[in-house]
């Protein structure tokens, strides 16, 4: 069967907020609330509640202030909130997906979520707990995929199949968040020194 080619990507541009977080953009009251805003969990969620925050730096080392970030992750048992999740039903108190604009003042994004469980691949290999990130902004022509991993999971990280695709240990470290209690900082560097590893998913 003939395949159709994918529609090409285009930059989200500087006004991405109007479409994806309209209340943030000042287009209030079109929708009741911005989709993906607020905690990824509701009362009764299983797992350890955490805050993830960080900034996205450009090649000159400046935080960018017009990006939009989405995250996608498994619940505490490693199950995704998706019809394609075949291993069981995920926690009904956990959405698994969040969206945030970075601050227009200091470029910080924030998510309130939980620590995900490990995700087995079905062939004996197991993925370390991780959170998928997708970043769009003016100047980014194709949305950038990356992942955040947890520093306290060094054993699981050591055998994670995706981390092990990265040849240089210093580059692998760009995907490990910094932890202070239940607050994790995950900064993303688009280019240059300490450039974050981005994924061809």
């Amino acid at each position, binding site marked *: 069967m003939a395949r*159709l080619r994918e529609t090409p990507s285009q930059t989200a541009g500087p006004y991405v907020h109007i*479409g*994806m977080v309209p209340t943030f953009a000042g287009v209030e009251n079109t929708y009741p609330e911005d989709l993906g805003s607020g905690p990824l969990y509701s009362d009764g969620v299983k797992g350890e509640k955490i805050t993830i925050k960080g900034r996205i730096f450009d090649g000159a080392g400046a935080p960018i202030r017009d990006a939009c970030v989405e995250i996608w992750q498994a619940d505490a048992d490693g199950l995704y909130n998706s*019809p*394609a999740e075949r291993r069981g039903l995920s926690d009904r108190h956990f959405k698994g997906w969040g969206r945030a604009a970075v601050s227009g003042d200091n470029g910080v994004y924030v998510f309130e979520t939980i620590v995900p469980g490990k995700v087995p691949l079905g062939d004996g290999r197991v993925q370390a707990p991780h959170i*998928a990130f997708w970043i769009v902004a003016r100047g980014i022509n194709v*949305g*950038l995929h990356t992942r955040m991993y947890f520093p306290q999971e060094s054993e699981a990280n050591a055998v994670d199949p995706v981390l092990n695709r990265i040849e240089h240990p210093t580059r692998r470290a760009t995907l490990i968040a910094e932890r202070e209690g239940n607050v994790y900082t995950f900064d993303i560097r688009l280019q240059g020194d300490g450039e974050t590893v981005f*994924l061809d998913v």
Partner: protein
Amino acid sequence: MRNDPGDARPFIPRDLALHPAAFDPGYKTSVLRSPRQALISFQNTPTEITGPMFGHDTIGPLDHDLTRNWAQPGLSAIGERIIVHGRLMDGEGRPVPDALIEIWQTNAGGRYRHVRDTYVAPLDPNFGGCGRTLTREDGSYAFMTVRPGAYPWPNRANDWRPAHIHFSVFGHGFAQRLITQMYFEGDPSIPLCPIVGTVPDAEGIAMMTATLDMDATVPFDARAWRFDIVLRGRRSTPFENRPEGN
């Protein structure tokens, strides 16, 4: 056959040659925002194969109608009334149902309702500029809106964006996530635009260009523009009831 949201087969690797390069000096903002290292490739895992989906209770009755979803009751946005519609498909040509599409655009004068847009063209008090909908069983979708205006932007000294509508599209897997822009057939600004020009070939630009669709036009009300969108398709795997490679 439609696309099943419960399908757990991996996606065909993205052909990055069909997409803009991260670094394109013609689009100056990309210079400092483009990774220089190679992307790391790996087989899709459940993280990429699964993705968020949204229920019909997410969508309000006017969310798809930008002429009215910001307007005072009984009033409507100013501009040329248009219907933008099409089908969301995957690389195998199968419809993608129940997928969220979000759009945003300028008003008819080329001005965004955004705190950072300082273009001299006036805001329209009855136009916000965003809409969203879920694709139907057959992958089809439709928006009612006004034709957006062209606007100048700081890149080279005199760059103008052709009239366009931004599209954010979810498929069924997080790996299918796509943002693109829709242009209007016949707009002489299309070949002049450095952002359009980030797309490497004419076929790709044609895919982003909606065509006038008189069959879907509502007489004495609104002309229709057709814009089909293709997301990545899934691989055949030995788990299907047919030999690999079909």
